[in-house]
């Protein structure tokens, strides 16, 4: 025996019970409350289509709301709670909303927008209070989730008789086969109706599939069908709320299949009649499942309402189990059911029910034009069968209308998918039309949508099925209309006076059943969703306890505070060290590409918008790259290391994009060039040494005269070969030292020793930002934001006049030279600090004419400066504007100036 609890009360279950079976076994028929009217609801189905019996399972971070009681298998210690009720399930204050049903009909919340806005402010509180079903856990989920790929020749979805046979045939034909079943055991309809193929056949077939190398996944739902026959599977490795055996609760499979065979079967349809939602009204096949699979008989006196033969199997099953079959209401005319051995009423359709807390009291029906009523505690309904076509439709398939079954069945698909079994050939039924009052005749049970709501939507002009769906919320609950859609379509078609296929269909979208957010996140659910990229020198930085800053996937030191400094204090101290003496920083994350070959310069002059071929060996230059539309998308430096060998650097944030761009240009635009372009971003770690004494520091380190500005030399530091690039981002004399990453720690230690010896400092990204803003250097993602041309950034004088670079044609478009474009400017605060990201306005209330892209303190002189983009900014130097950030309540008066606040002649980095 297994012990579990429901709403705090302990119960016992049998091994293999679903929560629904266990509740019924314990005589509990009332399981939940409906979303809108808080109507008492029981268990209607035995599968994933369950609309009513939604509960929260588990505790703490493991709690899973809106779990279908029919789709969770009881384990020892399971804790389940009912939802959407207060103070308790039996006495729910919210049920008073049922009295207000006329005011809460389809689209009522849209109507709250009518009238003055004040009315909405009144309604909003109550609507928000009532919205949502179940409560998301507030604690972190302690479990892990896995994503796994799989490939197969044949993927079979559904392990009923058709699916098992298809999987067996494919496996024994030598195919790689995956068979998935959402239940925890195989067999599907055979579990309910084992007359022809019993458990032994299922077991033997499964053994043969496995023996032939097939993989069988139970508790696994094919939840999405994507392009190229990619199917996502959701596998439960533990039940909702259960502690997983090895820490992993669920696995998301990405299966790429050569062929997909769908053996999904059909879902039985309910019938629309008044009070068809009470506990005690169940689908016929579901009832049969509870009796035959779980040995649970949820009632003693049974009425069956049907329009097909299948329900007679339920009558037999219940009779065999000792229940009394009070009446079978068969919508078909006589002699349907005449030889069943049961009391059959033909031309009979249900009208209404009366109920007690956990079951029914009576059922009434219209029989051959007359109203009749029976005492009964259980009503089994079978309104026909809806083939499960969701995956077929997600695969881009089409549907045919099967008149005999009054159902859509799969037709063609552009993907390699076939539907077999019951979903391809549903049972014939008798077409019936609801005769009961539409007001309490529910068709979407979870969202409390009735036939009357469909009628109202029609009356209010909603003709399209897509509009009807959204106006009434039909099919928008967690069950996604598995039970309701056909009933709604039937009613809409009836209103339109057309056949159901002409009424249209809504779209079938993944997932087929709800998927947890943790499963989508996978292993990344425990961190930021992706791995953090570690610097080669990470351990050395970490030992100094810096403030870290995420930069893309990287984490880089933002500052190295000492003696309790704040970030700003540390950054200012570090920046001053660079201005007055020397500082060193880690620049390993810069993108770096080694470009080799006789055509290397020609290749680089296609990538870069500046000239390259005129560079002498050992020289470098600043460069930038354009998109094909002529806008700047990255910048960096290019260095001629040898006759036919160059090193191209570009921004950290754009590194992956630049790698893709270079690969594209190499392989698609320039396959004819004799060139190799290799991404060496991580091969080389980089250290920058900057400041007035940087040259002397480096000279000591390399034992020779350092290269002049924008020159490069190979050298040796601490016995390690390095490449030295004399380039400055800070505005001071500066050098970048590149070393094979595995040797970087040795070189860093040597450099740090020398820098510290002369009283220098390490500096991080914050100081680097101060330095570069003061100098007016650009940053990709800041000033280079994808909307700026070389002209806008005052880079046009550097453009390769010969053209031929990517973006040259786009840049020639007249619109990019017209007045009114935003241009790079500098901004000086007249008082206060300039808020970064603020808009630039000429006066209070005026429209923005630009924005501040980066702001900083002047390092030596003090005061606030910034870089920004301003309409026609080049011609507006001297103007006074307001830098305003209304969202932060900050503003400053600023003067527009040239975007260089420090050594505009560049004298400090030249010898």
């Amino acid at each position, binding site marked *: 025996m297994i012990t579990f609890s429901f709403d705090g009360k302990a119960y016992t279950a049998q091994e293999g019970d679903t929560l629904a079976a266990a509740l019924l076994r314990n005589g509990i028929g009332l399981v939940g409350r409906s979303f809108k009217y808080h109507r008492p609801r029981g268990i209607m189905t035995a599968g994933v289509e369950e609309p009513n019996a939604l509960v929260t399972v588990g505790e703490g971070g493991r709690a899973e709301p809106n779990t279908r009681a029919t789709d969770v298998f009881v384990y020892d210690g399971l804790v389940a709670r009912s939802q959407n009720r207060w103070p308790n399930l039996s006495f729910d204050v919210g049920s008073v909303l049922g009295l207000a049903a006329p005011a809460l009909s389809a689209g009522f919340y849209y109507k709250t927008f009518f009238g003055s806005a004040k009315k909405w402010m009144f309604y909003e509180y109550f609507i928000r209070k009532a919205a949502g079903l179940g409560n998301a856990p507030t604690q972190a989920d302690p479990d892990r989730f896995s994503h796994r790929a799989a490939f197969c020749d044949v993927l079979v979805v559904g392990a009923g008789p058709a699916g098992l046979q298809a999987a067996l045939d494919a496996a024994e034909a030598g195919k790689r086969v995956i068979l998935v079943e959402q239940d925890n055991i195989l067999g599907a309809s055979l579990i309910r109706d084992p007359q022809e193929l019993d458990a032994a056949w299922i077991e033997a077939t499964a053994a043969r599939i496995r023996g032939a190398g097939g993989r069988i996944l139970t508790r696994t739902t094919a939840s999405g069908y994507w392009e190229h026959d990619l199917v996502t599977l959701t596998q439960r490795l533990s039940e909702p709320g259960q502690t997983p*055996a090895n*820490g992993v609760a669920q696995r998301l499979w990405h299966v790429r299949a050569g062929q997909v065979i769908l053996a999904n079967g059909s879902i039985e349809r309910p019938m629309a009649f008044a009070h068809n939602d009470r506990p005690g009204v169940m689908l016929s096949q579901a009832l049969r499942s509870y009796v035959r699979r779980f040995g649970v008989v949820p009632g003693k006196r049974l009425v069956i309402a049907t329009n097909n033969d299948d329900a007679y199997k339920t009558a037999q099953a219940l009779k065999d189990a000792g229940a009394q079959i009070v009446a079978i209401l068969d919508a078909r005319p006589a002699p349907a059911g005449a030889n069943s051995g049961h009391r059959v009423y033909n031309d009979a359709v249900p009208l209404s029910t009366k109920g007690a807390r956990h079951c029914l009291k009576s059922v009434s029906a219209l029989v051959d034009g007359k109203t009749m009523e029976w005492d009964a505690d259980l009503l089994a309904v079978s309104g026909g069968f809806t083939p499960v076509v969701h995956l077929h439709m997600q695969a881009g398939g089409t549907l045919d209308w099967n008149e005999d079954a009054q159902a859509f069945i799969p037709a063609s698909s552009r993907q390699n998918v076939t539907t077999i079994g019951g979903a391809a050939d549903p049972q014939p039924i008798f077409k019936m039309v609801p005769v009961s009052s539409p007001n309490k005749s529910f068709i979407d049970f979870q969202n409390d949508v009735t036939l009357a709501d469909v009628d109202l939507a029609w009356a209010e002009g909603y003709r399209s099925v897509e509009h009807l769906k959204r106006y009434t919320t039909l099919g928008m609950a967690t069950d996604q209309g598995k039970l309701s859609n056909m009933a709604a379509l039937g009613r809409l078609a009836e209103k339109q006076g057309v056949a159901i296929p002409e009424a249209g269909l809504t779209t079938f979208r993944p997932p087929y059943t709800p998927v947890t957010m943790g499963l989508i996140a996978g292993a990344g659910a425990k961190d930021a969703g992706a791995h953090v990229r*570690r610097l080669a020198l990470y351990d050395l930085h970490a030992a100094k306890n810096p403030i870290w800053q995420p930069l893309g*996937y990287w984490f880089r030191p933002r500052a190295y505070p000492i003696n309790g400094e704040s970030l700003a204090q540390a950054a200012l101290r570090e920046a001053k060290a660079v201005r007055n003496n020397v500082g060193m920083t880690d620049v390993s994350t810069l993108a770096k590409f080694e470009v*080799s070959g006789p055509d290397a310069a020609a290749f680089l002059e296609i990538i870069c918008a500046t000239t390259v071929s005129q560079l002498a060996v050992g020289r470098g230059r600043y460069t930038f790259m354009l998109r094909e539309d002529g806008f700047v998308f990255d910048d960096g430096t290019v260095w001629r290391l040898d006759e036919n060998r160059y090193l191209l650097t570009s921004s950290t944030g754009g590194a992956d994009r630049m790698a893709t761009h270079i690969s594209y240009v190499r392989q698609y635009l320039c396959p004819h060039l004799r060139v190799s372009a290799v991404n060496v971003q*991580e091969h080389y770690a980089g250290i920058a040494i900057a400041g007035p004494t940087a040259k002397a520091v480096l000279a000591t380190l390399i034992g020779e005269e350092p290269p002049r500005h924008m020159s490069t030399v190979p050298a040796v530091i601490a016995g390690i070969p390095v490449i030295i690039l004399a380039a400055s981002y800070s505005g001071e004399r500066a050098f970048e030292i590149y070393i094979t990453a595995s040797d970087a720690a040795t070189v860093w230690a040597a450099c740090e020793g020398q820098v510290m010896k002369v009283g220098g400092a390490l500096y991080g990204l914050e100081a680097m930002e101060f330095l570069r803003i003061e100098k007016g250097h650009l940053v990709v993602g800041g000033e280079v934001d994808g909307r700026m041309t070389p002209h806008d950034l005052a880079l046009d004088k550097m453009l390769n006049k010969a053209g031929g670079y990517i973006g040259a044609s786009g840049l020639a478009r007249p619109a990019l030279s017209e007045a009114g474009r935003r241009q790079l400017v500098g901004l000086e605060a007249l008082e206060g600090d300039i808020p970064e990201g603020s808009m630039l306005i000429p006066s209070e209330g005026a429209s923005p004419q630009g924005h501040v892209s980066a702001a900083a303190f002047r390092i030596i002189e003090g005061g606030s400066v910034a870089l920004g983009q301003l309409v026609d900014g080049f011609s507006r130097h001297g103007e006074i504007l307001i830098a305003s950030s209304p969202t932060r309540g900050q503003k400053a008066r600023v003067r527009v100036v040239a975007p260089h606040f420090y050594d505009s002649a560049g004298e400090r980095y030249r010898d």
Partner: protein
Amino acid sequence: MTEVTITTLPAAPLHVFEIWGNAASVAKRFKAATGFALPATGRSGGNDALRLIRFEPTVWLVEGDISALGDVLADDGALTAISGGVVHMRLSGPGWRTLLMEGGVFDAESPAFAAGCSAATIIDHVNVRLHVVSDDACDAYVPLSFSQGLRHFWKQAAGILAG
């Protein structure tokens, strides 16, 4: 139980060997210099001193002694060092194929992906080059910055497989 062990191999020289022209001549010179043919796409070839693994139509990863390759390439290609940016890991044990399916997009379970085969793929967002060294082991060449994260990911996944 599915077992797999993850080992980080010692750093060793690693180069990109790329040909941009006269491929047949390069192949001929290569075989003459090394005694084995340039491996086909998705395959490796070589010996203990020198091994080439082909991941792209014109690109091979080179492990070992490259002293002869400069002359082999002449003006028809380039050799570029990348060892500083790559961590060489080995996944060994019967579970390596299953492990590679975790967070993967490549069919490492295919019997055709056998010893001597190579592949460039993505595993849990990380670009990884794979080389099957035996039925029981597969080497992975992982970007340095991602290596610790991927090793952690694999160790957790391996724990799941073993559970």
